[in-house]
Structures are given as structure tokens and as C-alpha cells.
């Protein structure tokens, strides 16, 4: 009997201790994909400062790789066990989460103390649905620009083009001299989509795609989409793209190697590549790297100052199963407070906050931010804007279009058919 009593007492004590411990200890799980330098450090310093200021809250930081993350977050959500805080690129995939009621509406948090005015307005459009905000823009500003090898341009007396015809003429000159005009790694598919997005924007303006993707009047069979396809295939037929581009992988650097080796002169790519150049080949960055904005298309209706890309690149969200959303939001705020912003700028990032341009010292980044600030509109990547199913169709279509396996008309019809099926009309 004594033994039993003793045992019961012990159990009661353990339970008591456990409850007290749990009551004090709030744990926030936090997944992110900033796993290449300087990403982990940028995240960790903010989390450390948050935990120092908030004893009793433990933040469990889980860094992940980009592509495996996309699968893991979906599996976790499907199983009803997502992390408290997780990243996304906004757009269509985020909207899936919103509709599935897997993320918390952050509108009230964002409007408290006018916190929202801290951010560049265009950074919020990708996470705002039906007037509610679902994410905090943190990581970077990334737009697609043409990088070019200054040495090659100098050698053949070329200057950065301002119109598409000039760009085609440059390509012809380079081909005549045995240099590949454009490097492209299109196993990755979203890489070639950049040409298409820009051409459509230059030809017809951003409204066409918006009305098409949301099925409110626009259509992929609009002449602008077909014309963009034709202009791309013209370049492909000229031999303007690097040999075998449909089998080259962006993630293993197969589009950058030809640039480094002076065998290709240009590449259309996101501005995240600036820090990649800096890390992979500082000499190339110093001596040869130049860039120019996507040129205007003669007679096009689109404003040539428009850019394709994302302002905010990696937003953070709070899942609806999170037990401590207040703490989670406070933690996210540390990721983009003044100290974090200063550190990000120092590491070559452009955080999407108002007044960041004054803080930038790197001449290349200053040019980039000028393009963004002067942009009439920022078109989010199609594959992120569209619902995931359609994003995949778009990417597959791009690979086939560049591979000359679909005519521009067929490419347009393919995407239109997928859209019609998705919307059920």
C-alpha cells in the first residue's frame, strides 16, 4: 500500500512539474528555405534576438532546401501538422492554402500601429486576396534582367539594346562571330518563361495576363500571347540560344558556366543571381558583368518600365493550427526589423521596405532598385501567380515552345484549354 501511495505521489509530482513547464514554455516551429549563405545567419540572428527579448518562448528553426520544402510543407498540411511559421512566394500556391483555411488572416496584425506602411506597397499584392493580407514580405526583391558579358559586347562594338529589334540585331552579330547570344538552362523550365512573360507584358501590358489568369475577359489565345511565342521561336530558329538548352539544369549552374567561359554573351535571369555571381566568380562580377532591362517591343502597348519578378520574394505565413499566433507574428517582425534590414542590405539583399534604396551602397543593387521603383507594374512570375496545376502546364508549354515542338498557336491553345478546364468553363 505504501508503495502504491508513493508511486501515485510520484506520478502526481511529475504531472505537476510537466504542467508548469508547459505553461511557461511556448514553442514556435519555424521552417525556412534560406539555406545558402548568408540566409541561415540572417534568420538565426533575428530569432536569437527575439528569444532573448522573450524568455519563455522557444523558436525551433528548421532550415530546408527549396524543392524538398515544397513537398514537405504540403505533406505536413495534408496531415494537419504544419509548422507555425512557414515561407512561400505568394500568388497561386498561397491562395490554395488560403482557400483550404490553412493560413491565418494577418490583416489585423498588419494594420496594428500602421505596421503595413513599413513595406513597399507592391510587395503586398502577392499576399493580398479579397482585401485580406496573409503574409509578411521579408527576404528580397527579385526581378528578371538581362545580364551580359561586357568584354564580349566591347569586342564587337555592341551596346545594351533598348528595343527588341536591337536585341535581335545584337544576337545576329554575335551569331555571325561564333558567340552564342543567350545562355539558358531550360530543364528547369521557369527560366524560359521569363522571355515569354516579358514579351507579353511589353506587347500588351500587365492587364492582359491578369484578366486571363483570373478568367475575367482575357484569353491565352489573345494575339499578344501568340505573338510572344512567334518572337521567341524566331530567336530559337536563328540559333540564338545555347545548344541543348532544354537539357541544361539551372540549379547546377549549367547556364552560368557558358557565361563565365565567354561562350555565351547574355542571360535573362532574376536578380538573385547577382549574389551568386559574387560568390561563384568574383572576377567575372568585377570585370565583365553588366545588365540591362528587358527592351521595349516596337508598337507594343506595355510600358517598357514594367518589370517581371517579385517584391518580397519569400513571405512568411502563420498556419491556422499554430497555438501562439501572437508570438509567431512578433517573431516574424524581428526578421524584418531595422537591424535585420540593415544586415540584409549589407549581405547584398534588397528587403521590400520603404526607404531601402537610400541604404544600398552596391552600385549594381542601386541600379536594380531604381528599376523596381520606376516600374509601372511588377508582374509576378506566371508559375507562382497561377494555381499550381496551371503553373505546371505553363512551364511544360514553355519547354515545348522553345523546343519548337509546339507552334505559338498550339502553345496558346494548350494553356487556354488547361485554364478552361480549371475554371470549368
Amino acid at each position, binding site marked *: 500500500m505504501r508503495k502504491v501511495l508513493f508511486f501515485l505521489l510520484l506520478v502526481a509530482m511529475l504531472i505537476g512539474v510537466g504542467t508548469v513547464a508547459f505553461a511557461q514554455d511556448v514553442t514556435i516551429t519555424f521552417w525556412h528555405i534560406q539555406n545558402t549563405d548568408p540566409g541561415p545567419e540572417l534568420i538565426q540572428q533575428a530569432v536569437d534576438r527575439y528569444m532573448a527579448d522573450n524568455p519563455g518562448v522557444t523558436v525551433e528553426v528548421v532550415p530546408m532546401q527549396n524543392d524538398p520544402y*515544397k*513537398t514537405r510543407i*504540403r*505533406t505536413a*498540411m*495534408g496531415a*494537419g501538422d504544419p509548422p507555425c511559421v512557414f515561407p512561400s512566394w505568394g500568388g497561386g*500556391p498561397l491562395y*490554395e*492554402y488560403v*482557400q*483550404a*483555411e*490553412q493560413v491565418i488572416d494577418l490583416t489585423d496584425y498588419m494594420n496594428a500601429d500602421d505596421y503595413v506602411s513599413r513595406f513597399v506597397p507592391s510587395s503586398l499584392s502577392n499576399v493580398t486576396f479579397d482585401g485580406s493580407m496573409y503574409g509578411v514580405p521579408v527576404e528580397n526583391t527579385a526581378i528578371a534582367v538581362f545580364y551580359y558579358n561586357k568584354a564580349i559586347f566591347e569586342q564587337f562594338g555592341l551596346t545594351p539594346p533598348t528595343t527588341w529589334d536591337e536585341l535581335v540585331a545584337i544576337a545576329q552579330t554575335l551569331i555571325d562571330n561564333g558567340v552564342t547570344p543567350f545562355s539558358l538552362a*531550360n*530543364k528547369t*523550365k521557369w527560366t524560359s518563361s521569363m522571355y515569354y512573360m516579358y514579351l507579353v507584358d511589353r506587347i500588351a501590358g500587365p492587364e492582359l495576363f491578369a484578366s486571363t489568369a483570373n478568367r475575367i475577359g482575357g484569353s491565352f489565345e489573345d494575339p499578344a500571347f501568340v505573338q510572344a511565342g512567334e518572337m521567341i521561336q524566331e530567336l530559337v530558329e536563328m540559333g540564338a540560344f*545555347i*545548344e*541543348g*538548352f*532544354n*537539357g*541544361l*539544369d539551372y540549379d*547546377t549552374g*549549367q547556364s552560368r*558556366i*557558358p557565361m563565365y*567561359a565567354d*561562350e555565351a554573351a547574355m542571360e535573362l535571369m532574376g536578380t538573385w543571381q547577382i549574389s551568386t555571381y559574387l560568390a561563384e566568380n568574383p572576377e567575372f562580377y568585377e570585370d565583365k558583368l553588366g545588365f540591362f532591362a528587358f527592351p521595349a517591343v516596337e508598337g507594343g502597348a506595355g510600358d517598357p518600365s514594367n518589370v517581371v519578378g517579385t517584391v518580397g520574394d519569400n513571405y512568411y505565413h502563420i498556419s491556422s493550427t499554430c497555438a501562439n499566433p501572437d508570438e509567431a507574428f512578433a517573431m516574424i517582425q524581428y526578421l524584418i526589423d531595422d537591424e535585420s534590414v540593415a544586415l540584409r542590405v549589407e549581405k547584398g539583399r534588397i528587403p521590400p521596405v520603404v526607404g531601402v534604396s537610400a541604404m544600398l551602397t552596391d552600385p549594381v543593387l542601386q541600379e536594380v532598385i531604381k528599376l523596381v521603383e520606376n516600374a509601372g507594374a511588377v508582374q509576378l512570375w506566371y508559375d507562382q501567380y497561377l*494555381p*499550381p*496545376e496551371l503553373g*505546371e502546364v505553363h512551364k*511544360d508549354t514553355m*519547354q*515545348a515552345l522553345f*523546343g519548337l*515542338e509546339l507552334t505559338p498557336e498550339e502553345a496558346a491553345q494548350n494553356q487556354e484549354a488547361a485554364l478552361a478546364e480549371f475554371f470549368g468553363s
Partner: protein
Amino acid sequence: MATQIIPKRKAAAPRKWFTWDEYTLTIILFLLPSLLLMAVFVVYPILSSFHLSLFEWNGIDPVRTPVGLANWERLLQDDIFWRAFRNNLTVVALSIMFQMPMGMLLAIMMERGGRRFIFRVFKTVYFFPMLMSSVSIGILFKYIYDPSFGIINETLEAIGLEGQSWLGETNLALFAVVAVICWQYTPFYMILFLASLNSVSEDLRDAARIDGAREFQYYWYVALPLVRGTVRTAIILSLIGSLKYFDLIWVMTEGGPNNASELMATYMYKKAFPSFDMGYGSAVASALFIIVMILALSAFYFSRRLETEV
């Protein structure tokens, strides 16, 4: 007719297929742990895939819409799936046609080389591809196949031939990856065949020699027939492996360009995950399971007379 003087054996009771004796219980007890693991990680997921294939579900939504057999109807009319199926058959055919003879040739070479140092080195070297992870092999060969910088094109161009964009052309990509698959798996069959060749008794070789058989005749008429059971196992393994193949295709081409190297498994992954179409992805997975099951069982059935002890 003489009377039966030998006492009749007591007729054995007709064996029931199942009795609750000690012996059966022991078997069950020993099998239980692995049966449990199989049930949780193999049987349940397979059944659950079949179940999911009856829904329209994006993989995250709490609500799944039952759609009956709509996903299966769509599958039957899906050109890309059938293209993937045909590609799988190509992989099966090429794998068996290349890996089996190559593996056997290498095994015979190794067996004849015996324990000499240089052959032991060869044996280790030939086994290297098996030891590397598929992902690193895939990345390695992406560079080897690189149209501008890869060693293959550089070599071809050096001897005056035209380089190809191996992974970028629709009519080449699948074959380019299959070549790497063969390179990776041949050593596995080499080891398998070598083990079974070694288990053939030395007496038989001596006997064959005394009868005047040449080496080639020994292998062709004596050794090969004795190890045909291993060859059969190897062919079935290769068949199943090729039908459910995923790794190198995913790393090297992701099924592209334009689905030219799509396999059933890569198509399943693409539908279930990047496209947020878990229902249809599950239908593809279940179809893959059915196809592999049918082909593997028929292979077992039609080759049963080839079974041997080694």
C-alpha cells in the same frame, strides 16, 4: 495374387492448410514484427492510394471531393501516361538487353581472373557505380553530357564528329539516361552472377575439361544452364526496377524535354506534388502498382521452369 504382407502405412490425415499448433504459432510470432512493418509502410499506403484515387483532392484541403472513377477515366485517355508507359517498356527492354549480357561477361571475366590482385582491383572498380548515390551520378552525367563543355561532345568534336545535345533532344534524352542506368546497375548483376558462378562445383569444370570442353563450351553448356535460376531472378529484378524507375530520370531530365523521357513514376510525382493533384497522382500510382504487379507475376509464372538451385 499374393496377399499383401507389408503392413500398410497409416494413411496420413489430409493436411489442413492451417492449424493452430505450436509450429504455426511460432511462425506467426517470428513473422509478426516484419508483417506489422509491411502493413504500416507497404500495404496501408497502397490501399490508401487506391482510396485517394477516387477523390479530387489537392493534398492540403481538409475537404476531399469524391469523384468516383473520374480519375481513372482520365488516366485511360491520358496520352502522356501511355507515353510514359511505353518509355518504361523501352527502359525494361534496353536494361535487360544490355545489363544481363554485360553483367554476365564481366562476371565470367572476374571468375576466370580468380583471386589475382589485378582482378580484385577490377572487381572493386567495376562496383563503384553501385556505391554512388543516384543523385550524384545524375549530376555527374549532366556535366558529362553538357553540349558545350561535356567530355562526350568535346571528344566527339576532337575526332571530327558532331556533338549532340544529349539531354536536350526529345529523341535522345531517354536513351542518354538509360545508358547511365545501365552503367549504374550492370555491376550489381555482375556480383550476382559472379556469386552464382562461383557456387558451381569445381568438379564439373574439371569433368568438362577432361571431356575436352573449351572454356567457352564449359560456360555455354555447363555453367550457364546451372545458373539460369539466377539469371531469371536478375531479369525479373531488372523488369520490376525498370518499371518503377524514378531516380536518374528525375535528376537528369525531370521527364523532359516535353515529356520525351517521362516515366510512370516521374509522372505520378509531378501530378501528386508540384501540380497539387493528389487524387490523379494516386490514380497514376495505383495504375503503376497494377501494371508492375501483372507484369512481374506473369514473368514469374512463365519463367517458372527455369528455376534452379543457384
